[in-house]
């Protein structure tokens, strides 16, 4: 187990290193830099001005020198400062992270809350109308583009019902109700596809488990159906579901960017989009690295959980 963890951690570091190189190179491949953004379209400036600005941002050095420099900072825990606002990148990220984290957690929570019972129900009544409804609904859930769903919700609530949450972000600690009224629709939107995925997964693993020997034995021994489901079947069926929830983090992270755009939420996604368009390299690099790190870390934790829940699995 210990070697496994170590190996996984090493692999993660290697992957993150790869991610950092790719992001770094990619940003520098995007045409136009922060210098042109700053100057505006018809600033009448000479080569000397442009040169001094490039120097100011260190853009005059070869990209690998810039990279090593940035990496050196990272190793010391310094993600650098934003080129536009001069704020520490980490501080920027942590000021936005609560919004996105809450969004992601709520989305996952409600997708589990909806997805698992729906899947169980469908599996227990296989072939019935409720099974068909669940299967259809979950496929539908996978098919709705998140931004479109968000648009329709805005149309319904903000425009037709004139139900307007606060335009300024309110954190949970400040005011729970105001916070929920802001984040409910975005979380609903973000979690729809995941809920659908989880319900499908739960259904199929439940079917699988219900068909197994020991469950049939338990049933034959006269154990009540409810007990069978909750003690035997569901527990085993949930193992793969946990994995799916973990894997869905990738979808959620991408979805956050879109949903934050649709609902104008001031989260990590918004920060990243702004930074890309402003060519604020340190912010883009930092945000993506933190995002990828979180994503891989969560997957790692899920895999470990997996081993804890399911004693049959051993990592060696």
């Amino acid at each position, binding site marked *: 187990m210990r070697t496994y963890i170590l190996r996984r951690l090493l692999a993660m570091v290697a992957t993150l290193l790869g991610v950092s190189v790719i992001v770094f190179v990619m940003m520098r491949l995007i045409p136009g830099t922060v210098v042109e953004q700053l100057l505006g379209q*018809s600033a*009448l400036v000479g080569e000397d001005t442009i040169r001094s600005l490039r120097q100011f941002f260190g853009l005059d050095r070869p990209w690998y020198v810039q990279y090593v420099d940035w990496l050196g900072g990272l190793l010391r825990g310094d993600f650098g400062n934003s080129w536009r606002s001069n704020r520490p990148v980490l501080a920027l990220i942590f000021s936005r992270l609560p919004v996105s984290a809450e969004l992601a957690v709520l989305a996952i929570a409600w997708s589990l809350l909806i997805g698992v019972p729906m899947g169980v129900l469908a599996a227990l009544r296989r072939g019935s109308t409720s099974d068909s409804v669940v299967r259809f609904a979950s496929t539908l859930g996978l098919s709705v583009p998140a931004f479109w769903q968000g648009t329709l919700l805005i149309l319904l609530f903000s425009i037709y019902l004139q139900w307007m949450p*606060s335009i300024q972000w309110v954190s949970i600690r400040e005011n729970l109700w105001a916070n929920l009224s802001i984040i409910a629709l975005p979380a609903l939107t973000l979690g729809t596809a995941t809920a659908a995925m989880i319900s499908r997964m739960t259904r199929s693993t439940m079917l699988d488990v219900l068909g197994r020997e020991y469950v049939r034995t338990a049933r034959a021994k006269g154990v009540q159906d409810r007990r069978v489901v909750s003690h035997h079947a569901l527990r085993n069926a949930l193992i793969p579901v946990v994995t799916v929830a973990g894997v869905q983090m990738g979808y959620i992270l991408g979805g956050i960017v879109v949903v934050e755009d649709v609902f104008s939420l001031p989260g990590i996604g918004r920060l990243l989009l702004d930074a890309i368009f402003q060519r604020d390299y340190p912010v883009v690099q930092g945000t993506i690295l933190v995002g990828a790190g979180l994503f891989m870390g969560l997957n790692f934790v899920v895999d470990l959980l997996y081993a804890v829940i399911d004693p049959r699995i051993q990592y060696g």
Partner: protein
Amino acid sequence: MDEPEQDVHGMKRREFLKTAGAAGLGLAAGRVLSPYRWWTASAAPAQGTPRRGGKITFGSAALPASIEPHLEGADIYQRRKFLFYENLVWVDFDLVPRPQLAERWEERSPTEYVFFLRRGVKFHNGKEMDAEDVKFSYERVMDPRTGSGGRGDLVMIKSIDILDRYTVRFVLQEPTATFLVNVAGKYNGVIPKDVLRTGRELQQAAVGTGPFQVRSFEPNRQLVLERFADYWDRGKPYLDGITFQAIPDETSLVAALRSGQIDIVQFESGVNFKLVRHLVSLNNIQAPAIRWVVLDLAGDQPPTNNPDVRRAIALSIDREAILRIAGDGLGKRLGVLPPAMAFWAMPIDRLPNQNRDLARARELLQRANLRPPVPLTIRNIVGFPSLIASVQVIADNLKEAGFDVRVETVDIGVWIRDWIARQSPSTMNEWGGFVDPDQTFYRHYHTPPQGVDFRRWNNREIDRLLDEGRTTLDRNRRKAIYDRVQTIMAEDPISIPLYAPNSLYSMNRKIKGFRPYPTGFMFGLRETWIEG
């Protein structure tokens, strides 16, 4: 028109792109008095006696990433910066240079100006402003190592000399009609001499002399201003504070305005303005702006290197339709200069090639020996809705005349890079912020090295006229020169202005005294107050 006619801009672009320095054209204009009075007549804010106190929230689609006084070229920043930074001179609502930090000035010769500073002006950090600060601030903008986009506006300055603690002399290379207006330019602002150590201190905090001081700033999200108690103009401003809040989605902006969460909005989209303008609970202002959407042609690339083709393009475009569709009908048509530059702008009916004439366009194409379909690439910038809307109408219009238009959409970074490098193909563009025709024309059309001639027009007659206009100080003689410039530009349309969107504001009825400024700057908030 049921709203008072006033100033400014109505371009709807995606919020994140706005933060780019898209409309970074130089401000500042002639010492020349441009009687920009015709809106004031109808919009005179005779609204009772101003009352002190109260805070307001101002909603807009986007906020800047930085509030650096001399570097930040983003229009969304520059609109707000003069609430906390000031110059020796400001250009008033009628586009006339007026004293600000300088109490008065003397023009000792056409190349020598002496400014007498106000005494007892305090910076937000408590220090008193003096001649050292003035010299330092303007020289910082002029220094290429600073990297300010406003450097070009100040190139006529030969030296800045301190005569005593409250007197500064500016010596110019040559007489320059726009000197005072350029001193008031949007890249300038007087800062304390000793506030900078690394040069980056003012990206997120501000130390100016303006009526408000920055209490907090969150890049792209929120800018909170509070009343500066030691402001030199005693009694001003009236408001205790202004919170600028970015709300990228204009639909939410409308809802927030209706629900009272925000007090005043500047709309980018005419559609949303139209939605609220019938509401009696709101005071809605639209004002003609010095800002316009334009199709710029490449003077050195076929087929637009042929003046006949340029004319054919101008004659094919249905500007009325563009104003209706892309401008939501809330704007003005224009010939060469927008109607908001009232003294200078020539009316459409005195200029050639202003109306659609497909037969004539086809004839011109024939004369140029071009057989339809004539391929033409028009560049466009990602995420600027009014440009994207305009170019689609243009593409359809030109198709009818025998062109085959390919719209090439590029990122703003690419766009700016090629534009500055004078390599841009024919492209959509948006201009604004000028208060004098010299600013509009000189750097844009004069051949290098004096100008940039971004479109490679290479027109020697224009060069001559622009040089003459720059050094002529008499206003009426200048008017004649710029009339000639406008006529030439309409005869050989290297730039085809499409429409000038109005500035659109909505505010609750308690807000009084807000006046739109022609370039969209928010000088009006200095005089705004809340009814008790």
